[in-house]
């Protein structure tokens, strides 16, 4: 492969062609790429019942699809009007299953189900429709007709003289409903109107939540008009949208500074304007190859795969740099790349072998990551080896002629190679890592979110004001079928209500039978309803004691008879009504069983509630604990894979270098760096999470490459200078990118940034100290 160099114009044309191919390929892949935001794909399979509930049935608690809104500013009346306008608009939006602001309630109950009110309402559990009860009710209606509320009550009376519809509407209010001013919910201070909005999209569906948040803000803007009120929106969905937006903004400016910085750095290093373009090609190809490979082999590409994947293939940016620093006038590009190839190939191959261990993790997200990085790194290496030499200008400046570098080399050469001091540093770092106070691992995924403390406080406040369910605890009761689950939920509700009244345990709860009682309960209520003749007689007796006309109550008689003789309601009768949404959220129907969920409000004594739940065969599920145990299980898999990777890496490097001394020189810097990073993070009280682990893997990969090249340079002064030049450029590039990430306000980015930035510095210094050969002065 000793080709003559191509003409400069052709070289540039080919580079631009490559770029064009990448742009087209990127466009094609992005059209077929289905990014999945479903966190569950990145998790190992569930084992405990709580994990199963979390992953298979819920995906999340009933509270996590709830967005809480408050409107503040201006007098209560105008704020209330805005709340009504918002509800009016959002209630007809298919993206929301429930928009509640305290208004109405009657319209939530569809006309065709109205007769069933007598089966759904608890009134008949304690009252009978006899002359005495009806007389008492009718007298109250007469007084209603004489009151200013007559216009509200009058249309209801002929069919519903006991106002059962109102009783039901009150029953269905949130367990601890906020106060009403001007007909809508207000906070205790009476200044902010409150709304609770349940989205159709799942809490972990970022696109769906974004659409929901946008729709709410648009509705508010329309409702506000020219008023000077403000909207506060909280809840898991709103937070994830805010974080998403912030990540994007920060990634935007970080990316811009990175790009400019890298271009300037490459130009300064090589004084050739084509180098920045050429340098970007292998990395861009790597990213696309990785994405393409994952898209081919898996159904959907996980968003985290992409994020982690691009982090891990960042090491590929170094490949062309090594080549550029060794390319100089008088040397064929093909010859200089061939000289570097064994070292580069060793680095790439060992890294890929290490990543291959993710295949055995049994977690789809990690398998995707393995495919992504192996395809990416392989592509970048092959592109550097077989395409780059044809495109690069052969007459680059030789770093070996740089006086600055020579002074640096001479200074470094005087530093003795450390031996015992390394052992001391290693032991010290290990001791700090092990004995530093504070938990080692961070399991709480929520702590990774950069939601400001005051936003969380606002959320807690709104949640309390609205009586919104606890997002952490939920009771799950499994039954053989829907009826069984509903009966259990009714029995459990009786016990919980007793505990609630006794005080100190919980403030409220919500259960599916509150909206749809079991068939058994509905049957019992049907037995309480009088037959037509009996009811007619009782009603006539009652009406006679009032100024009401006796001939207006035919609709009431008809409704009672319908309720008495119809088949009790089951979930499928509710399809298409607002009630179905409430029931579906709390009653999970499967082929062979059904699970009733009981959401809790103001839980003060989880232990007591857990005991009550157990008494009816239910269990109090701690969703936070379940998700934390999943994270821990996931980390366990990663650590196993990493252990295996470390072993394979040593074997691979051994096979390539075939000398214990060389293997030591190559592996010691990265091993020591890993311990030092851990020690520094632990010393600063950082709890480690998955993102730190991924960053540590990248740092180790960089360290391996640095050491391989330092070692490869041998004792030749000029080779040492060229390698030093290449590695300074490489480490500065990586440092620039990750140091900027370390400044980010997003914990995930910060975790990756600090870890890798530390790793770059430590790997460079240690590589220089340990891996380089003692120099040989020119004779």
């Amino acid at each position, binding site marked *: 492969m000793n080709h003559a160099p191509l003409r400069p114009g052709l070289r540039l044309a080919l580079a631009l062609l490559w770029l064009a191919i990448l742009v087209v390929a990127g466009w094609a892949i992005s059209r077929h790429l289905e990014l999945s935001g479903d966190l569950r794909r990145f998790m190992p399979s569930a084992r405990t019942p709580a994990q199963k509930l979390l992953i298979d049935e819920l995906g999340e608690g009933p509270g996590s699809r709830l967005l809480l809104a408050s409107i503040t500013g201006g007098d209560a009346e105008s704020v209330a009007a805005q709340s*009504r306008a918002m509800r009016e608009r959002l209630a007809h939006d298919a993206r929301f299953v429930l928009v509640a602001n305290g208004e109405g309630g009657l319209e939530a109950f569809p006309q065709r189900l109205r007769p069933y009110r007598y089966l759904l309402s608890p009134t008949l559990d304690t009252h009978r429709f006899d002359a005495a009860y009806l007389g008492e009710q009718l007298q109250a209606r007469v007084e209603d007709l004489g009151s200013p*509320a007559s216009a509200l009550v009058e249309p209801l009376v002929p069919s519903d003289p006991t106002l059962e519809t109102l009783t039901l509407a009150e029953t269905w209010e949130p367990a601890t409903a906020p106060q009403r001013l*001007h007909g809508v919910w207000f906070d205790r201070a009476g200044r902010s109107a409150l709304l609770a909005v349940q989205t159709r999209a799942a809490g972990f569906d970022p696109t769906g939540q974004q659409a929901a948040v946008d729709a709410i803000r648009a509705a508010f803007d329309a409702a506000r008009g020219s008023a000077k009120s403000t909207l506060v929106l909280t809840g898991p969905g709103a937070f994830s949208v805010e974080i998403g937006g912030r990540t994007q903004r920060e990634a935007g400016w970080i990316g811009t500074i990175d790009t400019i910085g890298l271009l300037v750095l490459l130009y300064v290093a090589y004084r050739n304007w084509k180098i920045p373009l050429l340098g970007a090609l292998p990395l861009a190809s790597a990213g696309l190859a990785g994405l393409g490979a994952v898209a081919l082999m898996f159904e959907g590409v996980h968003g985290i795969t992409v994020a982690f994947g691009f982090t891990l293939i960042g090491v590929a940016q170094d490949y062309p740099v090594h080549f550029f620093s060794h390319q100089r006038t008088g040397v064929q590009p093909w010859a200089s790349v061939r000289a570097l190839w064994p070292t580069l190939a060793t680095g790439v191959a060992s890294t890929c072998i290490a990543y291959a261990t993710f295949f055995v993790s049994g977690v789809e997200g990690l398998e995707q990551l393995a495919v992504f990085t192996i395809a990416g790194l392989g592509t970048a290496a092959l592109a550097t080896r077989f395409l780059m030499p044809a495109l690069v200008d052969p007459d680059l400046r030789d770093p070996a002629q740089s006086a600055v570098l020579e002074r640096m080399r001479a200074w470094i050469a005087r530093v003795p190679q450390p031996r015992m001091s390394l052992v001391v540093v290693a032991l010290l770092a290990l001791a700090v890592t092990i004995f530093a106070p504070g938990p080692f691992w961070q399991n709480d995924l929520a702590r990774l979110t950069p939601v400001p403390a005051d936003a969380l406080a606002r959320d807690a406040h709104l949640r309390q004001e609205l009586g919104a369910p606890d997002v952490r605890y939920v009771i799950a009761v499994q039954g053989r079928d829907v009826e069984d689950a509903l009966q259990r939920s009714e029995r459990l509700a009786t016990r919980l209500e007793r505990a609630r009244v006794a005080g100190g345990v919980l403030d409220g709860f919500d259960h599916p039978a509150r909206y749809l009682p079991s068939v058994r309960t509905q049957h019992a209520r049907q037995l309480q309803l009088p037959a037509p003749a009996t009811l007619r007689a009782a009603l006539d007796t009652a009406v006679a004691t009032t100024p009401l006309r006796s001939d207006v109550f035919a609709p009431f008689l008809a409704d009672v008879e319908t309720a008495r003789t119809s088949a009790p309601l089951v979930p499928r009768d509710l399809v298409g009504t607002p009630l179905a949404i409430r029931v579906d959220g709390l009653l999970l129907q499967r082929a062979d069983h059904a699970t009733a969920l009981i959401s809790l409000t103001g839980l003060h004594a989880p232990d007591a509630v857990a005991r009550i739940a157990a008494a009816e065969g239910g269990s109090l599920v701690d969703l936070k604990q379940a998700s934390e145990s999943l994270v821990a299980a996931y980390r366990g898999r990663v650590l196993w894979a990493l252990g295996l990777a470390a072993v394979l890496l040593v074997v691979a490097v051994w096979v390539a270098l075939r000398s214990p001394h060389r293997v030591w020189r190559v592996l010691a810097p990265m091993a020591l760096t890993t311990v030092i990073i851990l020690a520094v993070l632990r010393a600063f009280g950082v709890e480690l999470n998955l993102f730190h682990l991924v960053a540590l893997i990248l740092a180790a990969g960089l360290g391996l490459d640095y050491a391989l090249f330092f070692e490869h340079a041998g004792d030749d002064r000029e080779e040492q200078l060229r390698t030093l030049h290449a590695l300074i450029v490489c480490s500065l590039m990586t440092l620039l990118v990750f140091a900027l990430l370390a400044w980010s306000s997003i914990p995930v980015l910060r975790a990756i940034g600090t870890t890798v930035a530390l790793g770059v510095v430590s790997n460079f210094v240690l590589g220089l100290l340990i891996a380089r050969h003692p120099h040989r002065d020119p004779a």
Partner: protein
Amino acid sequence: MELRGSALLKAPLRIEGEYKRPTDDTLVRAVRAPYVETTTIRGGEATIERSGKARRFSLSRVPELQGLQASFGAMLSGDRAQLERYYAIDASGTRQAWTLHLVPRDKALLAKVRDIALHGRGAELRCIETRPAKGDTQRTLLAGAARSAHGVDDAQALAALCQAQ
């Protein structure tokens, strides 16, 4: 003294009590007979208290009440400009027997209330006649008219009393 007619009732309901304005922004309707009930209208909300139980609702759901509240306030404070904000006003009659015809400006209110007639004598507001879009005319007799209505049960006679003839 109020008369409430309804298709559900054999005869209009006759309610006795009084209207009070403890403060400028509050209207209290206290019923004494045939049962005891207190309605407080303030800040866009009505609270109805009866036998120890209170019910609240927003005036936005009962626009006719909003009109009542506003017109009462305006009448009692003689603030014609405020009244004009809510209604197109047409005055007729003499100082001894005047009538103010109010037609709501607000569409939502107009859909429920066709018009309101205020009848008075001198400085005294004697009767409010509210004609809803559907249903019977509701009459509220006040002051001298209410006193004259004592013991009168005939609807025609009460209507005549209201219209201050």
